[in-house]
């Protein structure tokens, strides 16, 4: 079954390798992994979708925590969340054959983001099924798909839920914290937890 994890990690070189290596070590295939900035300049956010046997979520989460650069992990499981993926699809199309694709784009709420004499590019955002639906109908049509680029899934839980760790970070940083690029020597200033370390936040 598919497991989805959201990991908040330190924004440092090599962290992605450590996370990816963990999945390799556990012999678990990563379906998609997206990384990008989070709401804090020194913390990256990963959404990892992996194919693993049911019941393995706990161990994967616990193993992720064992990596020193991992600050927080959320095992999304069946929780209510918003899942999005973006895809760019380049389709062969001449001025004569564009028409049906424009119609499809409208139905799927995709956008035409590039138009060339021999091709056009679609941008579509949504859940995996919506993107795969568009790809399917394009394949069934007259026009050849030339390229597909998909970002992989991003996930955010609905409602008030927020990482306890990032909550703690907000508490420890002054409101008017200046945004300074983090360098290795500034590690000590990255105070993830304040106060009693024996008292989980």
């Amino acid at each position, binding site marked *: 079954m598919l497991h989805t994890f959201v990991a908040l990690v330190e924004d440092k070189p*090599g962290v992605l390798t450590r996370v990816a290596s963990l999945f390799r070590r556990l012999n678990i295939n990563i379906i998609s992994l997206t990384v990008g900035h989070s709401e804090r300049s020194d913390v990256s956010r990963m959404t990892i979708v992996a194919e693993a046997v049911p019941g393995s979520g706990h161990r994967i989460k*616990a193993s992720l925590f064992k990596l020193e650069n991992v600050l927080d992990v959320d095992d999304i499981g069946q929780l209510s969340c918003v899942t999005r993926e973006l895809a760019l699809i380049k389709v062969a199309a001449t001025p004569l054959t564009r028409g049906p694709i424009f119609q499809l784009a409208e139905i799927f709420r995709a956008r035409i983001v590039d138009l060339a004499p021999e091709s056009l590019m679609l941008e579509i955002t949504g859940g995996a099924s919506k993107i795969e639906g568009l790809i399917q109908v394009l394949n069934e049509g007259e026009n050849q798909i030339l390229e597909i680029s998909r970002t992989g899934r991003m996930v955010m839980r609905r409602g008030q839920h927020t990482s306890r760790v990032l909550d703690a970070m907000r508490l420890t940083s002054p409101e008017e914290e200046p945004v300074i690029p983090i360098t290795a020597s500034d590690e000590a200033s990255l105070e993830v937890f304040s106060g009693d*370390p024996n008292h*989980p936040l």
Partner: protein
Amino acid sequence: MTEKPAIPQESSQPTRLIGAEIVWATLAGEGVRDVFGYPGGAILPIYDALRKYPIRHVLVRHEQGAAHMADGYSRASGKVGVAIGTSGPGATNLVTGIATAMMDSVPLVCITGQISSKLLGTDAFQEVDITGITLPITKHNYVVTRAQDIASVLREAFLIARSGRPGPVLVDITKDAQQGTADFDFEAAAPHPHRPHPMLSAEHDAICEATQLILGAKRPIILAGHGILDSGAMDQVRTLAERLHIPVASTLLGISAFPASHELSLGMMGMHGEAWVNQAIQQSDLLIACGMRFDDRVTGVLASYAPNAKKIHIEIDPSEVNKNVKVDIALIGDLREILETILPQIAPRKDATWIRAVNALKGDAAVRDIKNLPDLGHLYAAHVIHDLWRATEGRAIVVTDVGQHQMWEAQYYKHDSPRTLITSGGLGTMGFALPAAIGAKIACPDKEVWVIAGDGGFQMTSSELSTVMQEKLNINIAVINNGFLGMVRQWQEFMYEGNYSCSPILSPDFVKLADAHGIAGATVRKRADVLPAVEAARGSDKPFLINFMVEKEDAVYPMIAPGSALDEMIRRPSNGHNPLLETTEEP
């Protein structure tokens, strides 16, 4: 260059030092007194700065030895061990030792030199991506490219190595970082409070539930693991066992955490555990697993493991919970703290029915026990180890290699005090014994240290005999010499129809080899000569090697063949030297 202050100042006044000096000053500040290493091009600045600091450096003969020595040092003392190597081959030679420490949760800080940061990634001479190589076998690792980062990274490395479930940390320091200058302030480089593990939560309800299970159990067993030593929970485990008369079975690495001579001690469990230990586990109705990880060598086939027992798992690493064995209650956290919460609710009880039943299981096994067999002129390894135990009164630190002799040691040497058995359990690293013993002797110079190694494993790292002499260490060495890679031969006998493919091994005359290093020795072929040789070794204040020529085709019994249940054991045939397969029935 003028002499620089050797020890970190109390005051927070920064001192201007070069990176290499910062390395030693930080180590000294962390309380390090001994390190094990081997110099080379990319780490020369660090070796040049060594003379200014009060730290003993032990020159090894191979970097694998450095990692094992640091490992043995740590296991004997409980402190963080430090190993040092240069870039490239120096770093890769550490790998086996680092993996050994990782599998057995031993805290190490390994420091490697690295080529200058400007050359990284150019395949420069002796460049290797050691942080990439050691990624899966370290708890964490670092590349340091600037002198000003050395102190804080090293201090964080020490914190990570010894906190939580301990493990090795590698710090790769480029040559330009070693040569650059920076302000050094030990206090200011203190690591920020280590992130607490959000999954560490031995909750009140779970503790109450566990207490009820313990109080209600009729046939409980404590499974004693290495975590008891790491947590320092020896007294708490003993108190729990004594209050309710709970027998205690040990994992290989848990040996010495509970006194072997204690009436509640069962001995080692698992693949080569005594029959009664595994039978008792199978009959048990409650397993209280303390700091152990249900390794495959401990459980036998999982489907039939302790089928009637509820399981309480007290463990610091949440990723170990339900990994192999599904447990009923997991208490995640420090073992000693958790037991201290439970103990006040456990009132002493005087029901000895279960312990009597367990003791009855021992009766049958004692008949087969090799040490009770008549001396028919054969020298058995078990005899040697049993005699060694008697001669040393169980007080020596014994460092074993891996294989048959390791299992016989676990069966026949009764360890009563903590940290007196040092052995590679998880990785099973042959060649571990001699270097690890060097580390143990340096950590505990006043203790008697014995190496017990097979003829195969001893040859893997016997070059460290030279280190023993250079450091003037009084280590005694027992080579259990049967002319075979004994455990391989045993598996070939039992599972490959006696096809001894590549397991006979020729050895040099170990006494002459010792002599070439200036180490005295003796060869023993008869049981009557065992004790005199052991006493000769003990009486000398110099290292001594005894080459015990033992029965060639003896096997370790009992044995649970892979894929068998814990109580389906191959037992020692009762005539002692005519191995036949035999399986016990459920009593």
